[in-house]
């Protein structure tokens, strides 16, 4: 494991700050114990992975999954995309046979992207590129129930704005109520930090005065009996967002880290995959800081639009940029099957997988570098989840969705294993409920069992637990 340096959380003026709610962490048992505050960071890739399949390119060999189930080792991970994570082999749980439900979204990308964190079908069936999910996403549920003061969880996006499904499309407050994403990582950081520490003293009193005035105005508006349900919900969200500055000042980076963040963020709205993944890494730096200092208990990071249809990732063989990722995933120079076959597109697809693996590795490194008050790393306190909308490339299957889980959430998850779920049905809802339970969501005091589509099998995936 790489532990080259460890961050020390700093408050205003660079003074180390206490992280009260992270104190008292104790070895955990099978579910979240009192006083523990595990977190989840979701890292989403589109278009499936280059797994073994038979396509018009030919019989494509396995290029993603470990060579065998069981212990994750250099031998089982080597030569596959997940091999990029071998330094964290003993902190990983790789899950096969996680299956989404085959809801009618009218489009395989919408089905995967919008079901991914929601585990429900479409708000309007068959709407294709105009689809919306029909429920709350797990990242939002975690934030809503577990964040301090009900603070919004962070939803971040890297890649060109717009595109299929409108760009950011995985995080929902509720049915057809899509969340806006933080696009520029520098804005993500500022959102969390709130204010420059040097300005803190002057700002705090003034902003409190302004906030009080604005709250009064919001309360007046909210008191109107004529408000529609929609407007009431929107204004309540606005009212809750008005926060005084002291609540977030413990989360800031040292100056050199801020400069590094700025440099990494430059290509957040780009089609250049190198820049996009650099921006994703910048989001990850902010995410790691945010969960470590207690700003939020969940983060969702989306790379690329609903089909990541404009990003051109690096050709790891020849250098330069490849055809856009969506074309590669279809193996053709077209957003459908009408274009010419792209030679070696299965290999090129695996290059994308490898680059996502490297980005995920960066997140694990970041989390591993934060030393928490209990003396353990942030990585051991929470989970980072790299998942995909689809199981594979051209087929865009809802089955065998890649789930790579880093960290144990204080000992909740197995570690160092590649497991295959025994339930061959649509078990994706169970996966999200298991993750929700790991970070502390409950239903009537027990494991989370009221998330997602109640028409699907409930419960959690016991075979993933330590």
């Amino acid at each position: 494991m790489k532990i080259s340096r460890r961050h020390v959380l700093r408050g205003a003026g660079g003074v180390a700050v206490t992280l009260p709610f992270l104190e008292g962490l104790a070895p955990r048992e099978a579910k979240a114990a009192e006083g523990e505050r595990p977190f989840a960071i979701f890292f989403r890739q589109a278009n499936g992975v280059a797994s073994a399949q038979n396509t018009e390119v030919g019989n494509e060999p396995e290029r993603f999954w470990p060579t065998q189930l069981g212990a994750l080792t250099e031998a089982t991970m080597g030569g596959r995309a997940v091999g990029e994570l071998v330094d964290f082999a003993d902190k990983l749980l790789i899950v096969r046979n996680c299956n989404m439900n085959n809801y009618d979204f009218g489009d395989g990308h919408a089905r995967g992207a919008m079901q991914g964190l929601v585990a429900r079908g479409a708000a309007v069936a068959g709407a294709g590129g105009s689809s919306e999910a029909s429920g709350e996403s797990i990242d939002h549920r975690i934030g809503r129930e577990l964040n301090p003061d009900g603070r919004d969880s962070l939803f971040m996006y890297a890649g060109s704005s717009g595109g299929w499904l409108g760009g950011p499309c995985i995080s929902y407050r509720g049915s057809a109520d899509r969340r806006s994403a933080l696009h520029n990582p520098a804005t993500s950081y500022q959102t969390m930090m709130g204010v420059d520490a040097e300005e803190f003293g002057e700002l705090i009193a003034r902003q409190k005065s302004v906030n009080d005035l604005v709250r009064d105005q919001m309360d007046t508006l909210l008191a109107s009996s004529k408000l529609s349900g929609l407007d009431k919900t929107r204004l309540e969200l606005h009212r809750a967002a008005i926060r005084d500055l002291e609540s977030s000042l413990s989360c800031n980076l040292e100056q050199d880290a801020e400069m590094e963040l700025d440099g990494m963020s430059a290509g957040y709205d780009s089609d250049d995959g190198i820049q996009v993944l650099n921006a994703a890494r910048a989001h990850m730096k902010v995410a790691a800081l945010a969960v470590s200092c207690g700003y939020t208990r969940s983060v969702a990071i989306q790379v690329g639009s609903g089909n990541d249809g404009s990003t051109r990732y690096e050709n790891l063989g020849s250098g330069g940029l490849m055809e856009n990722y969506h074309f590669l995933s279809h193996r053709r120079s077209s957003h459908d099957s009408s274009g010419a076959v792209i030679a070696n597109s299965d290999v090129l697809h695996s290059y994308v997988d490898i680059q996502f693996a490297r980005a995920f590795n960066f997140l694990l490194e970041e989390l591993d570098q934060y030393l928490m008050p209990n003396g353990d790393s942030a990585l051991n306190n929470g989970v980072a989840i790299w998942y995909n909308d689809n199981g594979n490339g051209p087929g865009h299957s809802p089955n065998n969705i890649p789930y790579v889980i880093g960290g144990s959430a204080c000992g909740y998850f197995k570690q160092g294993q590649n497991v295959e779920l025994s339930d061959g049905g649509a078990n994706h809802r169970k996966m999200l409920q298991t993750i929700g339970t790991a970070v502390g969501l409950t239903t009537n005091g027990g494991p989370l069992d009221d998330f997602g589509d109640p028409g699907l099998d409930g419960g959690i995936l016991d075979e993933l637990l330590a």
Partner: protein
Amino acid sequence: MRGSILGNLTVAVLLSSGCYGGLTAEDNAASGGTDGVDDGDGGDGNDDGDDDGDDEAEGGVDEGSNPEELPAPNTRFYRLTHAQWENTVRDLLQLTDVTGFSVEFRPDAEESGYIYANNAQATEVDSALWAGYQRAATSTATLAIVTDPSIMDTIVTTPGDPEAFIRDFGRRAFRRSLTDAEVAVYMGAWSDAPSYYTDSVGFEAGVRLTLESMLQSPMFLYRIEASEGEAGGVIPLSDYEVASRLSYFLWDSMPDDELLDAAAADMLGEYEGVAEQAARMLDNPKAANAVEQFHYALHNVKHFESAAPNAAIYPDAPADLGLLAQEEHSRFVQDVIFEQNGSYIDLLTSNETFVNAETAALYGLDASNYGPEFEKATLDASQRRGIFTQLGFLVSNATGVQPDPIHRGVFMVKRIACGQIPAPPDNVPDLPAAEGQTNREAIVALTEQPGSDCSGCHSTVINPWGFPFENYDSTGAWRDLDNGFTVDPATNVVLGGVEVPVANALELIDVMVTSDEVHNCYADNWVQFANGRPRAAEDGPLIQRLAGLSKEDNSVKDVLIELVTSRPFRARSTQEVD
């Protein structure tokens, strides 16, 4: 000669082909719309402003609009878009350019395929955006008071009088007069202001805190429609609310003093008052901004950037072809609508455009006659007719090698005719080899096999709208040959329920110009953009009236004046949105 504004509706006969799904008779019936016969205000063929007096007018919303045109339920709280925030702050502080502080706002979500950036029901203020508003308000106040004190000198019209400043600035910031209670609140805060700043004292500190506070107020951040009184089956908006609807639709910014004064004088409750202000506003350069935004979204101009002709096949294609096409589109739209006072038909048919040395050759022009700057040029009328024979649409709907008739067709059907096309099936068969045949023949072989899943939509709807553009290659340049064979751009396109043979793109456009569906679609999109929401059933009658005006070759500006003077634009629904 441009036709005058007429109120008579055009019979819109819209039939479906089994795949196609545009505006239907059922939509119209559900909306309480007309049967195609204009029984509204009629119109006398003269746009004389008198609007024929008192025909169907009902309480609260005067003449000038069809009483069957009803507003659909919508939010009462229209949060400023980020562009509106920038434009409003610019105008509020009387700056020459925007501050750029909104760059730190997180972008709004794009929901449900709605293509404009002003989805009123989806825009919200979450903690990330609130933090952005805080920072931007602070930065704006610092700019106006510390960085460039001349700004304060401009916005303070009565130096040394806090209450006068609060009332004056507040009226412009909130787009209405402040109540005495509101003034008292800001006066109370004023007295504390000096204690909040280390670099501002006295009156300056008061101005700075007031500015900072008002820019974070919901009264600034939302365009609020609080009117309650029902009259004639609708809730007429107050004059100030009408003023804001006008300014944010036509200018994407706040009302100016003249518009606010008109509201204060109760001049916006009548057709004439609104029409007069709208005409004035459309002559202001700020109107170009909103019109540009509309067409940018409708024509998916951002997608032009994706143009990437294969360099091995098109070695002379500009490296930045997409960006050049964006510039061309912007200049063309502005020229037609504002310089020529042109119509939608002009956008569809003009063979003038703007080129520079890099793009001229793609139109068959002598590049040596042009420099790096874009200039107006007249294109070969036998090859070019309007905006869809210009580079942007063509190059952004092409692969690096060949035109993409499928996506050209899908775009035209969905965006320009407002048809609906179901998603393709999961298992699309492979494209046959291209050797020995044209691009069209390969597409036909793939998508038009009798009895196949694809054929239903492709053979009658998608391909007929795409094949006429086969004369334009991946760079948008004209071609007569494809893969060594003569290009065949002829198809039969179904419009208005009638199958019409067209020989090529030029004939297709001629058919479009006379099509109710095409003009309905353009009007439909303007109504969506004006309302900040997707189309609702109630919009049917207004859309049809505006479409009729468009089809009669009225200018886009005149159509917009009819839109903003309509009953739905000046009133809100008696029903609240769920």
